[in-house]
């Protein structure tokens, strides 16, 4: 989203936020019209697959035009400056999870399927950096701990079909172990590492979150 917050008084654009919003809607409507162009609309008596989507797209486009028009005529709010860090990093983290939980075909190649044990910490560590306050050690500990928890909850307790380990690890465990046993031991190990990371880390000053006491009611 482009940032431009200096359209207050003059100039032809009086409400940039409405204008951009309206143009976005027009764009979406145009896309829908293009995509439904070769669908048969049918008649009112027996509608084809194209009728309803196209009518909706036209309605949406009209809303967009009205909104964009009001952005030119009526004074409205400016666009805020948006930091791209959050959206970009969070999208990366989500994509990392999607691509590594199980092998994902990309063109001729496939991404490595790491299972939850790999995808979980990866997502948390990457995603954590969406906040400028992120610290690697803390995120790593959090990722390992949360993954251990998710393994126990979704794998052991609920038996949901989520790949837990990389496929290559199938022979790593002693043959007699049950699936649940493997999960419990692994989760225990992960939690242990997470705890060690937390304990080995530098002590932080105690007052971190409490920000009360700024206004009249606090004593």
């Amino acid at each position, binding site marked *: 989203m482009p940032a431009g917050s200096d359209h207050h008084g003059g100039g032809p654009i009086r409400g940039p*936020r409405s204008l951009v*919003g309206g143009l976005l809607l027009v764009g979406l409507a145009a896309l829908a019209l293009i995509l*439904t162009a070769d669908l048969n609309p049918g008649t009112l008596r027996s509608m084809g697959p194209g009728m309803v989507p196209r009518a909706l797209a036209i309605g949406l486009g009209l809303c967009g035009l009205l909104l964009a028009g*009001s952005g030119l005529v009526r004074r409205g709010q400016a666009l805020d400056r948006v930091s791209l860090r959050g959206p970009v990093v*969070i999208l990366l983290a989500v*994509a990392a999870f*999607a691509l590594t939980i199980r092998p994902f075909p990309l063109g001729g190649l496939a991404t490595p399927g790491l299972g939850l044990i790999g995808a979980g910490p990866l997502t948390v560590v990457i995603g954590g950096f969406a906040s400028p306050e992120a610290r690697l050690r803390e995120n790593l500990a959090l990722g390992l701990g949360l993954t251990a928890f*998710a393994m126990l909850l979704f794998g052991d307790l609920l038996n949901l079909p*989520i790949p837990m380990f990389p496929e290559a690890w199938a022979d790593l465990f002693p043959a007699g172990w049950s699936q649940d046993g493997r999960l419990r031991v692994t989760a225990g190990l992960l939690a242990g590492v997470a705890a060690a990371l937390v304990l080995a880390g530098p002590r932080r000053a105690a007052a971190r979150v409490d920000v009360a006491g700024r206004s009249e009611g606090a004593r």
Partner: protein
Amino acid sequence: MSDLLANLALGFGTVLQVVPVEVPGLGPVPLPMNVVLCFVGCLVGTLIGVLPGVGPVATIAMLLPITFKFDPTGALIMLAGIYYGAQYGGSTTAILVNIPGEATSVVTTLDGHQMARQGRAGVALGIAAIGSFVAGCVATVMIAALGAPLTRLALVFGPAEYFSLMVMGLVFAVVLARGSILKAVAMILLGILLSTVGADLETGQERMTFGMPFLSDGIDFAVLAMGLFGIAEILRNLDHTEARDVVRQAIGRLLPGRDDLRQSGLPILRGTAIGAVLGILPGNGAVLGPFASYTLEKRLARDPARFGRGAIEGVAGPESANNAGAQTSFIPLLTLGIPPNAVMALMVGAMTIHGIVPGPQVMTKNPGLFWGMIASMWVGNVMLLIINLPLIGLWVRLLKVPYRLMFPAILLLCCVGIYSINALATDILFIGLFGAVGYALIRLDFEPAPLLLGFVLGRLMEENLRRALLLSRGEMSTFIERPISAGLLLVAGVLLAVALLPSIRRGRDEVFVEE
């Protein structure tokens, strides 16, 4: 009357049913499984719902997979429990941190947080729980009483009536949305448009799928909801620099004193009535309940200046309205099969996963499930009272976890949760995509809630529109020639016209920007 009692008895029978459960090491142990599920649902729902910035929609979407293992009745009871838990958790956050978890607890922040600052957080939480409980009891009886007659009404409805009813619901949603009406209309149209993605219901032709096979079944509702309400919410919260106002004062005693009770008795009853009536409206009338209750209490108060400075009536009334509305919003879903808001739409998703088609036939075909779910609402309210009051200390500690540690956890839960529904990596990518789109929309002052509602009703609307026109041989006049349909459209038209009048619009803004 005897019908009502018999039905409630059937419901409570289902909920309290004792089944032998295999416990490792102990062999089969007789347990009231549905009560246990209700308890677990309430507890987990509160746990997630307490987190600032996670509302009921995101909570339910995230926790949907944990109900897969159980039979349909158990699963729905658990989901309902999660819903109440999340709802109540939102109120806890509103009182203790001044951050409303969702639209309906915005009002609670006004006086609830002031009470907390005066060292009366315990009383505020206590009266919220008591008010919710009273509201829950009344609403349960109301659902039981209205269930049968409304279901009979639903059986008379033809496609034209259904279509008009949904139009009315969407008009309600437009009128109740905050901000510009034009933007709300656009969001609803966009939602319906998204619902038409996928194979056409008659010809099976692919629509707007970009030729991608995973889109031919349409966009999964849980994916859209989790993107718009889970991921987009994280992105929005990351924009605000953290200034969380967790109360540092002692929580204080939990049980309200005699004066408190006397002051809040009538507000609780009034709030319950307002909330219960508004909650029935298709189109998320429940959102309006707390606002209406707060405005009413302020008007009726002998000294309105106390409001906003920790007036207990300002917590008791809206919280009761909130809970009553949360519960009566089940009525359109259970009787007509029309989800009035996003939470109920997730319930539809859950029912479909368990092979139940929501609608009037549920009550006759599956009475145990229908009445069991209603009875479980009352049980759920008791659970909330039991769970919440002793655990307040735990919630306070949870609220002090900084957001930089909280959002990666929410992110991981979203990813694992959505993957466990369909085991599709593309679903995960799509929550990211919808999250980014939702964030852009929020930044441009569009509200995602009407979009989701349009999406939910979209498919039903198209189906009924096409069927109605097929029956009338293409005559649009069928919608105004049939009396019920005409009445519903008339209500919708009048409502929209009224909302567009400038003076009412100002009033509407006032309700939402109550300071």
